[in-house]
């Protein structure tokens, strides 16, 4: 690496078994990524496009990094995009014509850095529409941090087809939902096309990380996508730990085993809560009042169990750089009792729900993501698994205690509809209960005095962390300098999967919308940034 990323050589040595970074010139960037995604003689299976990350420098350049996910490791291709020529714009050859999954990433990069992806069909604003006079925020460059007011006139309006009109749904929606606007293009009842506008709740979280200490950064990471706080804290901390140990850093931190178990316990409780929330939204949309009440009670029990274990209903404050903040506040035996009762009730009620034909009929054949679309776009998490993809980071690139505890195999092979996504989630809930049980049993025999964390001093450079959030693969790119955060880019599964959302509407009608949305189970906070 060049001196643009200080100390990266040292950092890479530590994270080497987790990821590797290849630097190429800006001209070869697209070709290198595309060949990395396809199969080669050395690597017969192709990689999955996992995201495009930018980091600006004060001299006007931007580091561009593409992440390619493989079994067991992350491959990163990077290039330095030169500053914009006078009167022009900084540009690189876009990936989107060859990698459809890159479309949203390149739109986001255009919003945040003003980079032009050559060859991209339509670089419409996504997270931050700006007028021509407003410069991009360029995260990482320590530039002006003034807030940018989204300019709606920067968005194109387009409707295609005879008799088709656009129905804007949101950003203020009927019910207690996060703010998002769906533009539903419709001739009346069918939904031939949907577009999502997410910029309304763009908070600028990425830029807030800059200059923070790691200890403060984890508090912000927990609030990037609040319903997946534990997964975000995990991915963020694991990135720091990969290159941080001892006074100078540069070595993988040895997180105590007890802490790994506590991390897995909270991550799985978070998964159960999120999946139950998704099921709840289905039952609400279907008017299944009793099922809705029962599952609402179960979800509340999960939230209360989490707060009894750590003092917070969303598990915030549990994961800290180097370990966890302490042992569970509730005795493992008491937690096990509660967990077993919950498990039995959830299984009983959801089994009955999936035998209720008036409910199942709403889901069957609704919002289909075909295996081809899922594979081409790299669908993540339950959405991908319901369309035949197997990947789950807990077994593909293990972290926390998933190397110590057995992660139940995904047996269900779905047909890609809302029903399949529901069944995948219910299978995962059962698996999560099993993992929680193993973690608690293993914790029961341990002394409460720890150790629960080790000191972490991050080395300068770029590190990657990940976790299988309830929504799917979560990636963190973390750049540190002098023990502080210089650039942090979280990439939530919600961001990646929401770009697939329009693909799910093939012949579905208005009343299917709520089910399709619920079956994706996304959080807009994680998309808008």
């Amino acid at each position, binding site marked *: 690496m060049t001196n643009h990323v200080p100390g990266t050589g040292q950092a890479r040595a530590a994270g080497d078994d987790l990821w590797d970074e290849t630097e190429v010139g800006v001209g070869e960037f697209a070709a290198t990524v595309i060949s990395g995604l396809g199969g080669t003689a050395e690597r017969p299976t192709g990689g999955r496009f996992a995201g495009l990350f930018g980091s600006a420098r004060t001299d006007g350049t931007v580091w561009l990094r593409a992440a390619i996910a493989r079994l067991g490791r992350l491959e990163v291709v990077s290039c330095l995009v030169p500053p914009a020529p006078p009167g022009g714009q900084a540009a690189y050859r876009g990936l989107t014509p060859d990698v459809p999954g890159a479309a949203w990433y390149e739109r986001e990069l255009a919003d945040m850095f003003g980079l032009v992806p050559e060859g991209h069909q339509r670089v419409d604003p996504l997270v931050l529409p700006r007028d021509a006079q407003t410069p991009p925020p360029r995260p990482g460059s320590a530039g002006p941090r003034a807030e940018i007011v989204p300019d709606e006139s920067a968005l194109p309006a387009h409707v295609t087809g005879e008799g088709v009109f656009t129905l804007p749904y949101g950003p203020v929606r009927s019910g207690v939902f996060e703010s998002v606007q769906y533009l539903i293009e419709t001739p009346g009842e069918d939904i031939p096309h949907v577009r999502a506008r997410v910029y309304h709740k763009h908070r600028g979280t990425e830029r807030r990380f800059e200059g923070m200490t790691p200890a403060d950064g984890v508090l912000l990471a927990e*609030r990037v996508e609040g319903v997946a706080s534990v997964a975000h804290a995990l991915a963020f901390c694991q990135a720091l730990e990969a290159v941080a140990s001892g006074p100078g850093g540069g070595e993988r931190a040895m997180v105590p085993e007890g802490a790994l178990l506590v991390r897995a316990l909270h991550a799985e409780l978070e998964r159960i809560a999120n999946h139950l929330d998704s099921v709840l939204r289905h039952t609400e949309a279907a008017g299944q009042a009793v099922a809705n009440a029962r599952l609402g009670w179960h979800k509340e029990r999960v939230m209360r169990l989490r707060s009894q274990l750590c003092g917070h209903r969303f598990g915030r404050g549990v994961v800290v750089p180097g370990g966890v903040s302490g042992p569970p506040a509730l005795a493992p035996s008491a937690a096990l009792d509660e967990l077993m009762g919950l498990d039995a009730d959830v299984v009983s009620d959801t089994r009955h729900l999936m035998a209720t034909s008036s409910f199942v009929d709403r889901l069957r054949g609704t919002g289909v993501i075909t295996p081809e679309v899922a594979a081409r776009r790299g669908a993540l998490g339950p959405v991908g698994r319901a369309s035949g993809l197997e990947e789950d980071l807990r077994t593909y690139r293990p972290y926390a205690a998933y190397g110590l505890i057995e992660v139940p195999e995904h047996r269900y092979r779905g047909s890609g509809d809302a029903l399949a996504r529901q069944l995948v989630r219910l299978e995962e809930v059962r698996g999560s209960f099993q993992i929680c049980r193993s973690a608690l049993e293993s914790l029961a025999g341990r002394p409460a005095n720890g150790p629960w964390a080790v000191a972490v001093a991050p080395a300068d450079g770029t590190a990657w962390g990940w976790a299988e959030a309830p929504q799917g693969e979560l990636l963190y790119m973390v750049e540190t300098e002098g023990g502080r955060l210089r650039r942090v880019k979280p990439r939530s599964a919600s961001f990646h999967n929401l770009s697939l959302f329009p693909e799910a509407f093939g012949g579905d009608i208005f009343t299917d919308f709520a089910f399709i949305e619920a079956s994706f189970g996304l959080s807009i906070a994680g998309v808008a940034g």
Partner: protein
Amino acid sequence: MPWVTRGLRNGVLTTRYPKRPDGYGANWRGAVSVRPDGAGRPPVTDGLCPTGAIRPGATPHGLAGGPVGGPVLDRGKCILCGRCVAERPDVFSFDSSAEVAALTRPGLVVPPTEESEAALATVRAELSRRVAALRKSVHVRHVDAGSDGSEEWEVAALLGPVYDVHRLGVFFTASPRHADLLLVTGAGCTGMAGPLLTTYEAMPDPRVVMAVGTDAISGGIVRSGDTGPGGVGEIVPVDVWVPGSPPSPFSVLHGILLAVGLLPAKRGPA
């Protein structure tokens, strides 16, 4: 077992709050307080709080309960990370109560000043007059103005069987034209300012606005320093402030009841 018998299986699960205190809500770590006894303790250092909620040595004369020159904590900025309680347990402590809502922004600062208590009486009387018509039934419209997504879960939980706000005459409505109470979550980011204001303006009088969550009050850690959205009070006039990151469902419920004057008298002012 059919759904109807399944629904009866576990009896009544609903809390009796606010008629009776609820064990879970009463033991909730809902806020941080400054301990009154400060004789001889070393001063609190700057930079202890990640969101700048603590001002060391800021207490002026005439405080009720706090020592002169002691630290002041703004619950409207506190995200309850607990760092101050862990590092300075001699100065800060967690309050075991979910009843943390306040009717004024200065009312979130602890220890309270005499001026803020006096101002509170005026505010309470004014709000009480305004909401007199809403006591039997209040319709709530929720708007997310840039939350992290967790507040929505806690607000939605109020409609579930455990909190069941319908029993108190509280209903959620889709149309702002039917709404009496605007419940706003999130930091108030610029992209939501327009839709939030439009919603507020579409509501009939009398209307009440609640800022739910530390993000909605001050921007919380999303604000972090001088930039970023600084709370929804910059967009709409807020009547009730509910701190928490996110506030527990009991805290949100307490805020709603406080807003429309439905708290039993013996519970006293917030």
